[in-house]
């Protein structure tokens, strides 16, 4: 009986160590901005993690511009199956030139989950941004997260 009690105590002590990694799962979101002097009609960016935070993209939503008022294009299947350790997001608009956004515009918000000890080291790359005629716009991309980190 003393041995049985000892086994129970040892197992109870070891159970927290055997808890699944999901217990350490954390979530954050990243607001992505394009800053363009000229109105842009299409954009595309790639977001990944330079670190080892085991980041996964768990959702993408559209930004603030009425010209891009629907959910952008991204690999939905990868996100839904939990395999999106990076993401390519893009969208276009057929709005009139006068209704296209310019300046600093939030184009998307990317929701992330990570389980590493450190937060993701976000790498953001603007693939392209073009105006209504398909000409490359002189634009820059940046992001902000609620934790205050930005690039």
């Amino acid at each position, binding site marked *: 009986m003393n041995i049985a009690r000892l086994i129970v105590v040892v197992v109870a002590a070891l159970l927290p160590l055997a808890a699944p990694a999901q217990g350490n799962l954390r979530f954050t979101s990243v607001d992505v901005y394009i800053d363009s002097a000229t109105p842009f*009609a*299409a*954009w*595309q960016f790639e977001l990944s993690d330079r670190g080892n935070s085991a980041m996964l993209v768990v959702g993408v939503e559209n930004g603030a511009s009425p010209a891009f008022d629907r959910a952008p*294009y*991204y*690999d939905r*299947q*990868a996100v839904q199956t939990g*395999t*999106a350790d*990076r*993401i*390519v*997001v*893009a*969208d*276009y608009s*057929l709005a009139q030139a006068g209704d296209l956004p310019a300046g600093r515009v939030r184009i998307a918000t990317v929701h992330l989950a990570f389980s590493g000890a450190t937060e993701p080291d976000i790498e953001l790359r603007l*693939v*392209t941004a*073009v105006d*209504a005629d*398909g000409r*490359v716009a002189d634009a820059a991309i940046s992001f902000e997260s609620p934790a205050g980190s930005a690039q």
Partner: protein
Amino acid sequence: MERPTDNDNEPQLPATLIEALKAEDQPTALITSRADRALEAQAAAHFAARRSTARDWRPAWYAAAAAAAVALLLVVPREPSINEGIGAQDVFYADVDASGRIDIADVLAVARSGRATQPDIDAFAARVVTLSPPGTAR
């Protein structure tokens, strides 16, 4: 003088009608079980012959209907769904603007051209943003 009876006041049927009604009132002809079995066998043989004739036509009718269904499937084009767009709309997946890369700018060009349907455009864009390596089935 005889007293009148109730029968004297009843209408009289014509004699020909009376004779005809008497002729109908004959005992029912009995059909023996032997005769009944003979009649049943003749009826079964008659209808069996008709069924075999109808059965001979069915395979041909079925074959004609199946051929027509296959012809319809081959001739009538299906509206492609967005779910089968990836890999199925290679006509539009191209470097339309000659930028050296296939990206959302090419999708915009196709969308502005009016040559593609929305499902075509969506499928093109889905290929642009896919995380799968080229040629990998998902």
